[in-house]
């Protein structure tokens, strides 16, 4: 039995790779039916395998490993291509393969007419393989392999329609910004490797950094400064991959890719890699209060910052993109306050409802012949009834209406943040005292909680604005699209319905309890010591906030206040311009980083390329060759003797030195 269960991991990870290889190499000749089958079935079977593995784990069995390959075994460095299935990776695998499978099915309808259909599925399967490496790998190196792999696939899929220059550029932007993050991640990883003496395996790392090790003083890192540096470097990597300030700029542009890709990579799976990584290494991050506070702060700021931008966007996918950035901010707020379970919970529910919303927007865009401006839509509930209902469910879920998935998970994060803020007398021990952690930052975490609540208000508002403007009011687009919409087929509607159901019931899955075994003791203590009185106060507030947002959206876009938004926009045009243009961050980066780099590159081109290489190298080399040629002609007969003379001179020098 156990043997079978372990080999399930092999199926989960390598079946998508097989699909990618088949579709990538032979897809052109295979025909659409086979490509569809290979692309979807490999992921579907992986999902079923993941379900079996999960059931095994759920029945109380121990987490298990599967060794694929002894990868590097040199000196003190031992790296295995090994996979590990515990409570955290089980959850991630189910989300990745489950949501991934639904999105594959949706893509069959959405990408049906694309000429590079096979290439699309090959990339998508390759992405699944990389993502599964990321979440299932049992050590840092396999995670990094997946980490780079998803970045590559993301680049390939954003620039999928590379004929369009802008889209190709968006792919490049994503790649370059991610590289900045990856650089931080690599430095963090090497520092960790260095201090942990070549240990890369999570379990070994965990025991190295465990409580016992701390108490008996064998912790590999004696100074909190180094551990903080490692955590912050890793967090830079997380910022790049999970689109946090200041590296979030690539995600809105990444919407240039096909919409199912946005749903899969840029909402449900890849962008949550940072949250996964920090949760996986919770034993490490819990040792550095400064890093944790930084993460929480960046998360909360990103949440509010992106939410305000989302309020004024017109492009349906841009709204969802900023919403994703904002929701990821919540997750980082969660891990930053030590509420790892709540964060992963939100990660899961967000995967459901955000994939649903993206796929819904995909159905809308598909129906509207590629139109993405919500102000050129309207009244679409008449045209797309099923899309409308499912989109509404997704919107309610993200807005935080009680009973739907998003409410529970968002609540859990805010509860964690506020609870930590009020818990000043937790009896925790340790060299850096978690009680100090809570004490020093108590007030600050309360501020962050309030920021989170304001972001929740914005979220409810802009999501319902999106919903009302798209599905209610009057139609404002061109007649042709209205008269001849591309109605979504079953392949597109069934994933929407499944995800809608998940967006409701996903909130009832006890993720925090499920994840308890993977948390280090300090993290567990932190969860146990939350002040429960606060949740009674927090819940009514956040429900009120959600309702205000929804009602305001209705009032301003459907109800009597319909003229007000344009009035605001004209009266406060400076504010609207600033927010609509995303606070000019892109322009700022362009001016401060891209331009200087270009100038330096241009200068280098002029000096190095033109003068050194073209001048001295290209023009100089023929000159050297010509001179050499002349010399050779001059000594044509004597050449061999010359060589022999050189040897004798060498000999003479040797004699001189050896004497």
């Amino acid at each position, binding site marked *: 039995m156990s043997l079978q269960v372990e080999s399930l991991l092999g199926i989960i990870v390598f079946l998508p790779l097989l699909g990618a290889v088949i579709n990538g190499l032979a897809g052109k000749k295979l025909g659409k039916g086979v490509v569809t089958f290979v692309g979807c079935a490999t992921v579907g079977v992986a999902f079923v395998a993941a379900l079996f593995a999960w059931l095994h784990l759920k029945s109380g069995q121990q987490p298990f490993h599967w060794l694929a390959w002894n990868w590097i*075994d040199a000196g003190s460095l031992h790296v295995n291509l090994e996979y590990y299935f515990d409570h955290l990776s089980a959850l991630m695998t189910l989300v990745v393969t489950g949501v991934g499978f639904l999105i594959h099915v949706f893509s069959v309808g959405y990408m049906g007419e694309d000429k590079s259909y096979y290439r699309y599925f090959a990339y998508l399967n390759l992405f699944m393989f990389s993502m599964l490496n990321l979440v299932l790998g049992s050590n840092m190196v396999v995670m990094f392999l997946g980490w780079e792999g998803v970045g590559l696939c993301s680049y390939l899929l954003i620039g999928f329609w590379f004929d369009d220059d802008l889209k190709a550029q968006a792919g490049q932007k994503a790649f370059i910004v991610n590289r900045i993050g990856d650089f931080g991640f690599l430095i963090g990883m090497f520092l960790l490797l260095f201090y942990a003496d070549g240990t890369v395996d999570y379990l070994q790392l965990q025991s190295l950094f465990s409580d016992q090790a701390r108490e008996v003083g064998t912790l590999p890192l004696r100074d909190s400064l180094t551990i903080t540096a490692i955590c912050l470097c890793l967090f830079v990597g997380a910022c790049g991959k999970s689109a946090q300030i200041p590296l979030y700029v690539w995600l809105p542009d990444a919407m240039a890719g096909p919409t199912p890709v946005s749903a899969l990579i840029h909402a449900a799976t890849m962008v949550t890699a940072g949250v996964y990584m920090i949760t996986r290494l919770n034993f490490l991050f819990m040792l550095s209060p400064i890093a944790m506070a930084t993460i929480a702060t960046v998360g909360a700021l990103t949440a509010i910052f992106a939410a305000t931008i989302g309020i004024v966007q017109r492009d349906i996918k841009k709204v969802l993109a900023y919403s994703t950035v904002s929701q990821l901010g919540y997750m980082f707020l969660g891990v930053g306050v030590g509420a790892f379970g709540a964060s992963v919970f939100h990660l899961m529910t967000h995967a459901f409802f955000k994939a649903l919303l993206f796929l819904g927007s995909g159905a809308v865009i598909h129906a509207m012949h590629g139109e993405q401006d919500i102000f050129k839509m309207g009244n679409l509930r008449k045209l797309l009834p099923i899309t409308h209902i499912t989109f509404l469910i997704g919107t309610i879920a993200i807005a935080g209406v009680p009973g739907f998935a998003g409410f529970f998970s968002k609540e859990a994060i805010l509860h964690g943040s506020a609870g930590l803020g009020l818990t000043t007398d937790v009896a925790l021990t340790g060299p850096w005292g978690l009680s100090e952690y809570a004490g020093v930052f108590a007030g600050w975490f309360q501020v962050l909680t309030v920021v989170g609540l304001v972001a929740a208000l914005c979220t409810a508002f802009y999501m319902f604005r999106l919903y009302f403007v798209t599905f209610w009011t009057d139609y404002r687009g061109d007649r042709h699209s209205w008269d001849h919409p591309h109605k979504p087929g079953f392949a597109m509607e069934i994933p929407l319905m499944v995800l809608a159901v998940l967006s409701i019931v996903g909130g009832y899955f006890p993720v925090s309890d499920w994840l308890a075994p993977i948390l280090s003791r300090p993290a567990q203590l932190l969860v146990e010591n939350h002040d429960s009185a606060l949740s009674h106060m927090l819940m009514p507030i956040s429900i009120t906030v959600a309702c205000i947002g929804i009602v305001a959206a209705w009032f301003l876009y459907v109800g009597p206040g319909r003229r007000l938004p344009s009035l605001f926009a004209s009266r406060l045009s400076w504010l609207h311009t600033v927010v609509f243009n995303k606070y000019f961050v892109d322009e700022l980066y362009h001016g401060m980083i891209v331009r200087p780099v270009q100038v330096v590159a241009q200068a280098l081109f002029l000096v190095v390329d033109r003068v050194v290489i073209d001048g001295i190298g290209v023009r100089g080399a023929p000159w050297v060759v010509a001179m050499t040629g002349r010399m050779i002609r001059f000594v044509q007969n004597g050449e061999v003797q010359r060589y022999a003379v050189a*040897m004798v*001179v060498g000999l003479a020098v040797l004699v001189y030195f*050896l004497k």
Partner: protein
Amino acid sequence: MAADLAHLSPLLIVCCVGLGILLLDVFADPKQPKTFIGYVAVVGLLVALAATGWLFATGGVLLTQPYFAVALTLDPFALFGFALILVVAILTTLASVHYLPSQRCEWGEYYSLVVFASLGMMVMVAAADLITMFVGLEIMSVAIYVLAGFKRQSPFAIEAAMKYFFLGAFATGFLLYGLAFVYGATGSTNLNVVAEHFAKNDPGLYGIVIVIMMIVAFGFKIAAVPFHMWTPDVYEGSPSPIAGLMAGGVKTAAFLALARVFLTAFGGADFENLAISWREVFYWLAILTMTVGNILAVVQQNVKRMLAYSSISHAGYILIGIVASRSVDGGAVAGSGLFFYLLAYALSSVGAFAVVSMLGKDGEEDITYGNLAGFAYRHGFAALCMVIFMASLAGIPPTAGFLGKYLVFTDALAATHMNLLPLVLVAVVNSMIGVYYYLKVIVFMYMREPRREFETIRSVPMGIAFGLAALVVVVCGSFPDTTIRWSAKAATGNPSADSAISAASVIDVPAPVATTAK
């Protein structure tokens, strides 16, 4: 006796293959193409490779008959060399079968010369006696002299062969002179006996003369500066696959023979106490060789000359491995990095020359960078393989060349007998210079429009040759485990130390078997 013959099978098979295909050529229809002879040679060499693999798996063998045992050592060190030489010979042959007709020099003896050259190299790396080594060296050299001038209608080829021959003869003179001094000083040419003698007696002036002579002779074969000047001319004039054999095979054999001679016979403490030990000489030679090779490679316009200078600079890196090696108990204990590096370097260069072989046409070769322009658009696979070889030679991961450099440099930094940090720093700077001209090849292949039509040879066996080499280079670079283990085995599992033939048993050669069998 029978066991000894079985253990000598790699050498015997190669010898028989060489003779066999020579006969095959005599009886073959002179009007028919000779391609099949090449394939027969490949099959024969593969059998020898299999025999080598079998012996390597058993961990090296001891020859029981004294007349074999004093001449040859079949330790993992030698067997590793056998395998590498055989692989290089196989790839060279595969690259040649369609190259020769297109260069209008398809004569059947080509293949037997390649096989005999390989036999010579194998004898060199397995030699337990300086005379055996010298015989191996000459078997190899004579074959290579002929092969260098094989395109005999081309004046460049004749020039190459003549130069190589004259200078080779010159260098051989130094070797023989050195050998004579060894014999004069110790009364023997057996490496172990020489080592024992020098362990008891101060080498003194003899030591200095011997070391100088040997360094000049080996310096010529490995193309170390300033004994390198023949290299670019000879590589340029030789058939491209033969240039690959010289870079990948001859150099490997010469390096392994050098390592064995210096580490076994002159590895004793007294040689360290000479005015300047040979390690210090190699130290400076390494610096000189890397730097001069690299700088001259940068200015080359002809890809074959560039590869020649690149092979010179690589000789410098490999010398670091030699300097970093220690000899223990008279057995050659080199760092495992040396072996890994040789493997990476040999396969990358033989592969690169196999790709370059494609660029011939009607008896003429003009392999300038310009002719590589746009190569990737017409020969995607060959260009991809070339990228792998260039990356490996430049030392870019995930290729074997990167790990080879890494291992050699680590060996050097871990060495306790000398401070090799400055040497490693020079090597790292040189590696960076090297990236320039290796990348230049890639730039031309992928980023330049072809200037004019140039003919290329389309050949499946040639494709197999560089495809296989590229595969091995990437696999060894990505999954280096097995190769590192083999290298370590070649470095440390040296039974010659265990079987150290006592002086007595060597002097009366027909002594009872019992003295050597353990």
